[in-house]
């Protein structure tokens, strides 16, 4: 176990009068799933204090118990989880403190606190909003349910709240449905809903994880503004050390259900005590915008991939009832070159067409116009998107793909050995014992243990699965690997590992990479050149250094500004307009 006893002490506060500011004091909270020795402690002996006007960030990787801790506070732990120990003292405005852990989860008293005193914002705003009710009513409903207003005043207050969360034209927006809103707008509506009853504590569970960086920056600024106006205590859950550095006052670091460190943000970043915190910080800084990049030094060879005016247009939707919608341009007029031996990044936000473009390059999707010319190893130039689908096999032997989701890209019914051997078998290169030997070499080269072969994908963690996918991509001695968000589904400590693995393999195997990502830090670490995309079109192409340090296009500048930097001393994110 990584935890070092005794429990880390709470950060010291210089101002003793601040004791009156305490909103929530959690001591020794334990939440577990199941019974007996097989029980899983989702949160084990968690303690912290939340004060008025301050932001406490709970940070940790997936499965660290940060969400369960937050849900325990409101007694909304999913079945069969339950709180087994500890106290959670909530200090109401003018009443005696209440121990939330003692309140029955379906009782009247916790319901009076839920939403009214302590409100919560969830990660995925689409699933947290009811799809069949209008936004305005969803916000007003809390007020009516708590008996704080009648319907008419509640609706007026809802419009007021929408104005407060900076939704343009609030009166009209209140009459709309969630699906008519963009992701960022929905999250604003969620925040308006959380604020409706004037809570004193706002719990935000990864509220910006599903959003683009530019939208994330806006939402974070909004939460900060509201916090200053209302004096909220904010409990912010995130996995992103950059976000922590930008918004936190205090930080609670969790690992496998336990608190490994609890400190003020400056102190935590300057002087992390626990080895896990150190690892987490190191991994975040490695992919940060200030770190030295690891990309290979290259002398660009001849262009191996020439992309000219690639366009993919989805035809107009004809509908009997609705007005015909205009055709959608997923990718429009994209041209660039990839030189042999270099790493090219394609960066953009969701909906920018970067994944569609990647799929067009390897002909998983057929572009509606344009050319992708690939120079084969033997010097022959082929038109990837013009040739017959059956003639693509030799191209696919040299051009391979690594997918975003390592869970979905491995066939659950095949062993690792079969998965990695499949391309070799299909191209008739090796069979029998020689094939097994080659697969063993491949697995070793991506750092998987020897006994991985006969296992099924479900026996591996996310990072290990991505290594299997990489081994499959390497199986045919490719020249070019297109990696589509290959690290996005992984925790931050694993991201660096996978990128380093690819970089270590590159000189040995003479590879070129196209790395598609929304994460500028990853691109900057890995790529020599970047293509910046926005709404299906290229905004800017150039050397990574030039783009990251001296962007010329306003969109690139905005994108760079929105990247949360893992340094609390440089809080540029919230200072912006």
């Amino acid at each position: 176990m990584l935890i070092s006893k005794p429990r880390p002490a709470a950060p010291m506060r210089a101002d003793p009068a601040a004791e009156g500011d305490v909103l929530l004091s959690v001591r020794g909270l334990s939440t577990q799933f199941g019974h007996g020795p097989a029980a899983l402690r989702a949160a084990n002996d968690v303690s912290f204090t939340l004060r008025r006007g301050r932001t406490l960030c709970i940070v940790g990787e997936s499965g660290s118990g940060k969400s369960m801790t937050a849900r325990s506070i409101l007694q909304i732990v999913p079945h069969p989880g339950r709180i087994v120990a500890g106290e959670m003292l909530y200090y109401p405005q003018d009443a005696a403190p209440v121990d939330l852990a003692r309140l029955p989860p379906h009782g009247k008293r916790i319901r009076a606190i839920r939403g009214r005193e302590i409100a919560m914002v969830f990660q995925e705003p689409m699933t947290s909003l009811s799809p069949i009710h209008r936004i305005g009513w969803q916000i007003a409903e809390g007020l009516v349910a708590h008996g704080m207003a009648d319907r008419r005043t509640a609706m007026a207050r809802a419009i007021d709240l929408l104005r407060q969360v900076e939704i343009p034209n609030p009166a009209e927006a209140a009459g709309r449905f969630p699906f008519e809103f963009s992701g960022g707008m929905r999250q604003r509506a969620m925040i308006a809903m959380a604020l409706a009853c004037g809570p004193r504590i706002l719990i935000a569970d990864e509220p910006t994880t599903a959003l683009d960086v530019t939208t994330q920056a806006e939402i974070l600024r909004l939460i900060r503004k509201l916090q200053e106006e209302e004096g909220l205590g904010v409990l912010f859950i995130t996995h992103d050390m950059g976000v922590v550095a930008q918004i936190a006052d205090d930080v609670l670091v969790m690992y496998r259900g336990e608190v490994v460190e609890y400190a003020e943000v400056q102190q935590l970043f300057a002087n992390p005590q626990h080895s896990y915190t150190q690892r987490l910080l190191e991994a975040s800084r490695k992919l940060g915008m200030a770190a030295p990049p690891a990309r290979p030094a290259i002398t660009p060879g001849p262009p191996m991939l020439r992309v000219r005016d690639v366009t993919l247009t989805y035809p107009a939707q004809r509908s009997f009832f609705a007005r015909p919608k205009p055709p959608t341009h997923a990718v429009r007029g994209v041209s660039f070159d990839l030189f042999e031996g270099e790493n090219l990044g394609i960066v953009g936000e969701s909906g920018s067409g970067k994944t569609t473009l990647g799929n067009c390059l390897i002909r998983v999707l057929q572009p509606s116009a344009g050319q992708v010319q690939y120079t084969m190893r033997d010097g022959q130039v082929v038109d990837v998107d013009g040739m017959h689908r059956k003639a693509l096999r030799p191209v696919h032997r040299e051009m391979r793909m690594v997918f975003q989701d390592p869970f979905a890209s491995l066939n659950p019914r095949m062993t690792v050995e079969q998965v990695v051997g499949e391309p070799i078998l299909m191209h008739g290169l090796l069979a029998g014992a020689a094939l097994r030997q080659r697969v063993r070499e491949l697995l070793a080269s991506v750092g998987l243990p020897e006994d991985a072969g006969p296992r099924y994908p479900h026996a591996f963690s996310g990072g290990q699965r991505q290594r299997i996918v990489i081994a499959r991509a390497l199986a045919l001695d490719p020249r070019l690997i297109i990696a589509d968000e290959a690290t996005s589904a992984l925790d931050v400590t694993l991201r660096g590992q996978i990128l380093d693995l690819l970089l270590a393999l590159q000189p040995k195997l003479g590879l070129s990479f196209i790395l598609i990502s929304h994460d500028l830090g990853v691109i900057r670490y890995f790529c020599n050149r970047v293509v910046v995309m926005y709404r299906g079109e290229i905004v800017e192409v150039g050397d990574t250094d030039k783009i990251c340090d001296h962007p010329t296009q306003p969109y690139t500048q905005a994108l760079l500004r929105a990247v949360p930097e893992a340094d609390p001393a440089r809080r540029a994110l919230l200072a912006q307009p």
Partner: protein
Amino acid sequence: MSDITAGATLPQTSRYATASEARLMWLRFRRHRLAFAALIVTILIYLVALLVEPLAPFNPDKSNGRYVYHPPQRLHLIDHTANGIRIHPYVFGEHLARDPVTLAAHYVPDPSQHVALGFFVRGDPYRLWNLFPGNIHFFGPVNPRDTVFLLGADRLGRDMLSRIIAGARVSLSIGLVGVGCSLILGIFFGGLSGYLGGRVDWFIQRVIEFILSLPTIPVWLALAAALPKDWSPVATYFTITLIISLVGWTELARVVRGRFLALRSETFVTAAWLDGCGQGRIIFRHMLPSLASHIIASVTLAIPMMILAETSLSFLGLGLQPPAISWGALLSEAQNVTSIATAPWLLLPGVAVAITVLALNFLGDGLRDAADPHAH
């Protein structure tokens, strides 16, 4: 380089790590108690269907005018003899008596007369599967000339227990064969529909909707009525099976199509194409194994529908006709109120149908849950 080998530890859950998807499904299935019990019942019922001749105490076609509508006899175990207590199965002998007023016949047990029963006794000769001659019966009266009617006798004095056991073979195999036909049709058309999509999909789905919109029983009746009366029982049997599966395949086709559509967009299928797999290999090596468990579950749930369909048809007199024995044909004996009033045990084949259908349904539910643990 430490980063390169950082993934070199595997979780030590070795039993599950190298377990195939089928094995995982079995482990999940075993936790499902009701389904596991249903599996055992199903296996037993199918064993009965397989070993009809030695298991039935008598030849199911042997009639005896002396035992018309003989009621079920009570089985005794403890025998008080002059030498003390002996434990062995026996029934009381019975003789026919007539009510002096109404002259109605009824059977009176005679406690002084014991008909001893035993296991593996000699009895009516038979040919197992029409191949191996024999006369050993798993259970029956020790003296071959004695009779015993544990579940009563029908209007010709034939033993109901033997007839129900014999009916199991036809009723259960019609389920299997019918589902087999449905499966072939369902996988073929469903797979075509799901994999090709577009116009083919549109056309097949409309045909399926048309078939499903037909009222089933009248259609079966019409088709069954069209069969020539002079066909042999075997020919009728297979035609009935085909008729039933003509409707049954549509549900399976829809399941297969849905799974194909879902699988087609999976990343690992795209990955298989990029690996250089041809269409056949993608379908058979990469997609079908993922479908297999769902297909098994759907098939298990389709068998009881087939059994019920056969029972209904035969009950209505349009499926298998006597002398062929199936549960439906046996139940057709219980069509009029008079015979049920005199001999309610004629409804016992219905109990056999209910037990089988329930067992198969529980089994199918369990298999479906095991195949798709996230469905609920």
